[in-house]
């Protein structure tokens, strides 16, 4: 029976839905003490003194420390693994600030008490004397003359400048019939994983450390913990139990993890910390916060000849794990699914007195796709051409396709996705309804917007990562282990936090080995169980980890084949393997199933000479290329022209994610991704005031949309096989990458007959109404 390609239910869900999941905050060890972090209320301030007396005297308090008290504990600062140029500035960043706080939320002291509530109460009693310093929160202001310096010793707020350019870009622009230049501001987004961060640290009698962490990256955590604490990795075990979402915000190695370990060691007790929601808004990385200026050059027939992008990207106050590299993940996508021969991309990283930025679903790719797809519409208007027609004219037709920017797209059929999209959308009917409303002068106008996109995921080929200065590799690993009686344990180096890996991976292994899907158990998220791995981010778990799993499975089959050949006294080449059974070619009654081979491997009574007992294999897979999902999306919006109130009425997504192992999980990933991209288009914005105070610190002011704001998504797929044994491309980020520009293009389209050409992100009622007023006056 084949389970790959079928929508079997997620085995993860029953426990989670019944409240029987096991998250970090559910775990308590005997003697656990609780940590509360005191955070700077100032965006920038010198820490003059920290008085801990009242906190230490408070009920239930075990200890309290300032940043200076703990300064000697650190073997090194919290590292950044992706310094994108030789001269990228990386100022030291410690778990607790020592002399200067550089963003609102920067930790300045820590309190440990007998309960979480007592720790919180005592944290309020810590008296910190601050000398407020001037602060800057806006990337453009941060680069202006005389701007306050986030790190005075650097003498500048510029972190780096990174450039990728083909020869002759300026000549191509100069020679073009049509040139459009547009500027876009993509605001801050706050990731909002449903489970905030949390850690529980235990230090054993020999100095061995166990850290339970709400993380996407147990392996990376372990690696970084050695750098920060000086404890050998071999003595560190990191466990990611059930993790309630991350969207990239749980990749980083935040200060609270090493801090809890240090306190557990000093106090001789396990130490737990659970982030509060408003604390999460300040203390966990943000995404986006980028200003772009983009130029397209084209012939008058609509063939795009050059794209040039310049972007100013907020780093925040410090570099987190991969902060400077986030724009680079989009650096090859400014030509998207189009054939554009001349190419230039520049990123300037900028320090601001804000929460650090880092990976947020899509990471660099939504930023690129947004400006690309918005500018496609701007160019279409400039040319007087239908936006779908312009896209069609420029979509890549042949694969593999090597882009002007240098990377090669292995597979795709962008025209097929677009054709299917138009079919599902029934564009003619939408346009007819739009025309009728315009004709009638309806208060509520209709708009339709498109986004044809591709993305670069399956992070990542280690050699390419090395070439762009990422500190480690992008491979992954898997182990497939037959137990003696025929059930199968799978150990993977990826670390899920809601994606349904246990189900998907079991489907792959069950099909290939010919065992029942319920006989396959998938283990992950514990460095003591899974030694090798590079964890989960960048839509890599299936496209990289899944291939490692495929290869490990093939190795198991190969060993079983040798055992069966030996026992049946035939040559390995004479054996066929299907549905869990090896059969002798031409003599199908001579057979042995793989479970029998597994038992034989464990019994070891009759193995080929020199063969080790057991049936367990490990494989690592380092992809030769990124994977390249793509597709075509359309949004239909209704805009109330009197109030600016904008409602999404339809959303159609046709994606090519390669082969879908579990179509239901794929749909779920697309739905969640769409919701986040639509949120960026219409609802979510992390707002700092000019002084660097975060104004959106609760879910009442940071508007994560709910199901009530979203229509039923219409999803479909076209499929081209990726160049890997499973043909899979990854689906974690497609929805987020494609959707925001489709929605904003739709808003502009709804108002285009009035003369509106742009609405800033997010398209709030007031901004939409203002856009209408501007063209009316």
């Amino acid at each position, binding site marked *: 029976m084949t389970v790959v390609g079928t929508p079997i239910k997620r085995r993860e869900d029953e426990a989670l839905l019944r409240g029987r999941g096991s998250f970090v905050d559910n775990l308590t060890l005997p003697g656990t003490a609780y940590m509360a972090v005191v955070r700077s209320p100032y965006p920038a301030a010198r820490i003059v003194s920290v008085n801990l007396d009242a906190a230490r005297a408070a009920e239930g308090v075990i200890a309290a420390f300032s940043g200076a008290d703990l300064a000697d504990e650190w073997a090194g600062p919290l590292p950044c693994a992706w310094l994108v140029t030789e001269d990228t500035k990386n100022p030291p960043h410690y778990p607790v600030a020592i002399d200067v706080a550089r963003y609102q939320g920067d930790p300045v002291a820590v309190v440990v008490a007998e309960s*979480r*509530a007592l720790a919180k*109460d005592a944290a*309020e009693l810590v008296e910190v004397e601050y000398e407020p310093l001037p602060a800057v929160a806006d990337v453009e202001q941060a680069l202006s003359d005389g701007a306050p310096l986030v790190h005075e010793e650097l003498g500048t707020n510029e972190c780096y400048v990174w450039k990728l350019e083909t020869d002759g870009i300026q000549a191509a622009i100069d020679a073009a019939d049509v040139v459009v230049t547009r500027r876009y501001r993509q605001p801050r987004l706050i990731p909002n994983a449903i489970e905030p961060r949390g850690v529980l640290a235990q230090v054993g009698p020999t100095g061995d450390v166990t850290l339970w962490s709400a993380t996407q990256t147990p392996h990376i955590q372990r690696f970084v913990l050695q750098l920060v604490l000086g404890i050998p990795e071999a003595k560190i075990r990191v466990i990611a139990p059930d993790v309630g979402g991350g969207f990239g915000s749980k990749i980083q190695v935040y200060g609270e993890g090493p801090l809890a370990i240090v306190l557990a060691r000093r106090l001789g007790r396990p130490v737990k910390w659970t982030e509060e929601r408003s604390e999460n808004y300040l203390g966990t990385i943000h995404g986006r916060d980028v200003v772009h200026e983009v130029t397209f050059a084209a012939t008058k027939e609509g063939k795009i000849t050059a794209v040039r992008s310049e972007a100013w990207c907020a780093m925040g106050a410090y570099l987190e794990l991969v902060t400077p590299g986030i724009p680079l993940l989009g650096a090859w996508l400014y030509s998207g699914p189009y054939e554009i021969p001349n190419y230039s991309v520049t990123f300037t990283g900028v320090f601001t007195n804000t929460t650090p930025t880092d990976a947020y679903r899509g990471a660099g790719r939504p930023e690129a796709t947004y400006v690309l797809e918005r500018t496609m519409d701007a160019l279409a208007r400039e040319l007087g051409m239908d936006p779908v027609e312009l896209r069609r004219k420029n979509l890549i037709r042949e694969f593999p396709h090597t882009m002007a920017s240098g990377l090669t797209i292995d597979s795709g059929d962008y025209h097929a996705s677009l054709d299917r999209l138009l079919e599902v959308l029934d564009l003619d009917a939408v346009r007819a309804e739009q025309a009728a409303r315009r004709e009638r002068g309806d208060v509520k106008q209709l708009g339709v917007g498109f986004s044809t996109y591709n993305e670069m995921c399956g992070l990542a080929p280690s050699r390419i990562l090395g070439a762009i200065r990422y500190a480690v590799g992008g491979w992954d690993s898997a182990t497939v282990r037959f137990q003696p009686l025929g059930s199968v344990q799978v150990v993977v180096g990826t670390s899920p936090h809601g994606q349904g890996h246990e189900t998907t991976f079991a489907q792959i292994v069950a099909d290939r080995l010919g065992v029942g899907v319920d006989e396959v158990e998938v283990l992950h998220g514990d460095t003591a169980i899974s030694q090798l791995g590079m964890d989960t981010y960048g839509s890599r778990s299936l496209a990289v980890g899944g291939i490692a799993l495929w290869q490990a499975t093939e190795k198991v089959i190969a060993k079983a084949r040798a055992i069966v050949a030996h026992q049946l006294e035939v040559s390995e080449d004479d054996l066929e393997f299907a549905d869990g059974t090896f059969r002798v070619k031409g003599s199908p009654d001579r057979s042995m199933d793989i479970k029998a081979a597994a038992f034989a491997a464990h019994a070891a009574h009759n193995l080929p000479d020199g063969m080790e007992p057991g049936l367990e294999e490990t494989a690592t897979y380092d992809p030769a290329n990124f994977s390249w999902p793509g597709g075509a999306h359309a949004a239909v919006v209704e805009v109330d022209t009197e109030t600016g109130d904008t409602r999404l009425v339809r959303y159609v997504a046709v994606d090519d994610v390669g082969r879908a192992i579990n179509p239901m999980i794929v749909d779920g990933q697309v739905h969640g991704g769409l919701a986040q991209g639509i949120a960026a288009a219409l609802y979510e914005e992390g707002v700092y005031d000019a002084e660097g105070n975060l104004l959106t610190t609760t879910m009442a002011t940071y508007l994560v*949309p*709910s199901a*009530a704001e979203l229509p039923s998504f219409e999803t479909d797929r076209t499929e081209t096989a990726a160049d890997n044994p499973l043909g899979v491309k990854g689906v974690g980020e497609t929805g987020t990458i494609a959707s925001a520009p489709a929605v904003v293009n739709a808003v502009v389209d709804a108002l285009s007959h009035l003369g509106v050409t742009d609405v800033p992100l997010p398209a709030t009622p007031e901004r939409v109404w203002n856009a209408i007023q501007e063209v009316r006056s």
Partner: protein
Amino acid sequence: MIPAPFDYEVAESPEHAVGLLREREDAKLLAGGHSLLPAMRLRLARPACLIDIGRLSDLSYVRDVGDEIAIGALTRHKDVAGAPLLQEHCGIVAYAAGQVGDPQVRHRGTIGGSLSHGDPASDLPAVVLALGGTLVARGPSGERSIAASDFFTGVFETALAPDEMLVEVRVPKLGPASGWAYEKLSRRAQDWATVAVAAVVERSNGGASKAAVGLTNMGGTPLRATAVEEAIAGGAPIAEAAAHAAEGTDPPSDLAASADFRRHLARVLTRRALERAVAG
């Protein structure tokens, strides 16, 4: 997300609750908890003592009392929204209760709690104000009635004395010539109104001869749009009358909207509310 320490008392009766309000320093009544508890969890509110009135089930009712409908203060929004008596005689209250927050809020939050909280962005205050409703408060010396127009005194402030609790809300039965509408603009379904308008009209010859208009989130308290009401009474067409909706208001500027945009919304939503109310 962790409130500051507080004491907790359970009231056995309205009299007991009022007695506790007198005895305990810095005490707050806890009803549905959907405004107070979030404020406490953010440590924006730090009452020394909570008096839980949630078990006073006698205060959950919707009754016909002649010319008025009486609503017990502890009636939850979902019960107000679903009350046949209100739907028949004063539909705007039921409708607006169905617009409060999200289903979780409507299943816990109470009409008395919402009115006593005095949040100018809440839906029910402007509705009760437009209806000319009456609020019944119990204090140490018994009950007194407060007109809705006297009840809301400032941002999160009401005419309730520190030792009084709201026990009942009375709204008029609307006659057959009446029409009503509540027009609300909010960013998300669950959000407070950016601006909302409650309109109750007397219909006549396809227009309105009389109108009462309540404004949500257009100042420190819910407001009556008196200039609109006077224009309607003076025979002005709806569109002309609605243009006066922002007069005398002092709307906030915040992340949801600027004050100017709110004034604009008040005019648009007032016109729409009056038109819908007239259309019945």
